[in-house]
């Protein structure tokens, strides 16, 4: 190492910051206007999914509530009838609430769900002004219907939707 190397190194440091000052583009996202893509396995706000025919996937089994380590989920089930059908099978979730202040976004509810009804989505912009608003109710969580004629509850012919858990195509999947 030469005698003047320390001084040159100081100068090199200065040049490095000057280079980034002039030439390097910033890495900042201008947040509210410019949002960042989430990762494929990102765990954001929950979404209650529907089948393609518009029926709710959730059957009110409360397995998500049982799996929840933070005890954030509350499910109350009611009976389906063919006159007023919400989901396939016998029962549907008449109340489904998640307290977003308790939720730790661990994704255990997703894993526990037998019908893949609850999924942690992409939305991370959760804010509320009081504790009451932190409890997300079913109508907030439920996905919107694909078309207008597939609303729930709806009248269906009897004997079609008897199976609450869909048949697995490939059991090893």
């Amino acid at each position, binding site marked *: 190492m030469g*005698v*003047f*190397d*320390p*001084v040159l190194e*100081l100068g090199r*440091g*200065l040049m*490095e*910051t*000057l280079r*980034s*000052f002039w030439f*390097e*583009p*910033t*890495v*900042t996202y*201008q947040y509210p206007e410019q949002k960042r893509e989430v990762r494929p396995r990102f765990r954001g706000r929950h979404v209650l999914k529907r089948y393609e025919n518009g029926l709710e996937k959730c059957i009110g089994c409360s397995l998500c509530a049982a799996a929840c380590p933070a005890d954030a989920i509350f499910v109350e089930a009611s009976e389906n009838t063919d006159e007023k059908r919400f989901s396939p099978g016998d029962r549907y979730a008449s109340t489904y609430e998640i307290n977003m202040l308790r939720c730790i976004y661990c994704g255990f509810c997703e894993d526990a769900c037998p019908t893949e009804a609850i999924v942690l989505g992409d939305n991370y912009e959760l804010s509320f002004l009081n504790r009451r608003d932190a409890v997300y109710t079913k109508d907030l969580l439920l996905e919107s219907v694909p078309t207008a004629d597939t609303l729930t509850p709806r009248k269906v012919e009897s004997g079609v939707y008897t199976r609450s858990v869909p048949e697995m195509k490939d059991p090893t999947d």
Partner: protein
Amino acid sequence: MDWTIWVEWVVKGFVLCLILLTGFAYLTLYERRALARMQVRVGPNRAGYQGLLQPIADAVKLIFKEELTPAKVYKLVFVLAPVLTVVPSLVLAAVIPLGTSFTLGGRVITLYVANLNVGVLYLTSIASIAVYGITLAGWSSNNKYAMLGGIRASAQMISYELSLGLCFAIAIVMGNSMNLVDIVNAQKDMWFAVAQPVGALIFLIVTLAEVNRAPFDMPEAEQELTAGFHAEYSGMKFALFFMAEYQKMIVISMIAATLFFGGYREFWFLKDTIFSVDRYWFLAPIYLLLKVVVLLFFMIWVRATWPRIRYDRLMAFGWKVLLPLSLVTVFITATGILLNDLYHVTIIGMPVYILAIPVISIACAMVAVSLIFRSLRRKSDGRI
């Protein structure tokens, strides 16, 4: 005495204070934006166009912040300390010439508040008063970290003040006056920074220590002293310390520009063109502003680049390197000017002794660098 002169003084003093206060507000924005760009960020750009209203938002936030006074502080001194820190930084600017003069209603108005014939002495004395505020703040806070910060500030100030004084001496010798206006006018043909680059460099380093900026910001080292002397301050009292630091940065840059970079004067090679301040008086403040902005950029740049140096090395650097080196540069400068006055030797029209000043000074600086290098290598070899 004519009463209009009082009006003139009051107006000029008021305008100067306004300049410094606005300068402080926008320097914080300037620093945050420049620092952010160096760290590949954007910096505050939300309040107003490109964040231009950010200082106002900051001020409002600080004013409405709760002000805490810890139970066991020495209250009088605790309240007085921020004021003691701010006032010198404002008063310091009084003697700095911002420009030449202009005529208003048949009256010549000079662009400086006071034309002191011992302006440089005034600067040295006022600049060191500011450290009282910092030390007293550290002491009255009744907090170990704050105390350490205050002590560090005073120790650092004493160590670096000497080299600062010697740098002032270089400018005094070269300008052949203690009056700052004369010093600026003496740089008409050549900036002192060109004639004595080592002196200018030492001055820039020392001013960093003087205003407690990185890499010499030991009194407020966040990691070890939790913000040091102003650890116990909040709200507007903290804002006053902040203000003092940034105003001192501005004023010190103005002083550096005045002493070594031609003050309000244009580049020396523009002296007979239309860009000369002798032609248009309003160019002078603009030139000074540009120089100050560049010097402030240097301070921010250094902060973004270099890490804080260890405290014992800071003291060693001040006493063992800067002080001898500045002594040598003062000696070389004075000798060169004296020899030039006695025997005006010229080679192809250039005064030999004057030209020898920067050459020999740079050689001395190189010797100093090599000595530091050798001492550091000895230490790393474990021989000391």
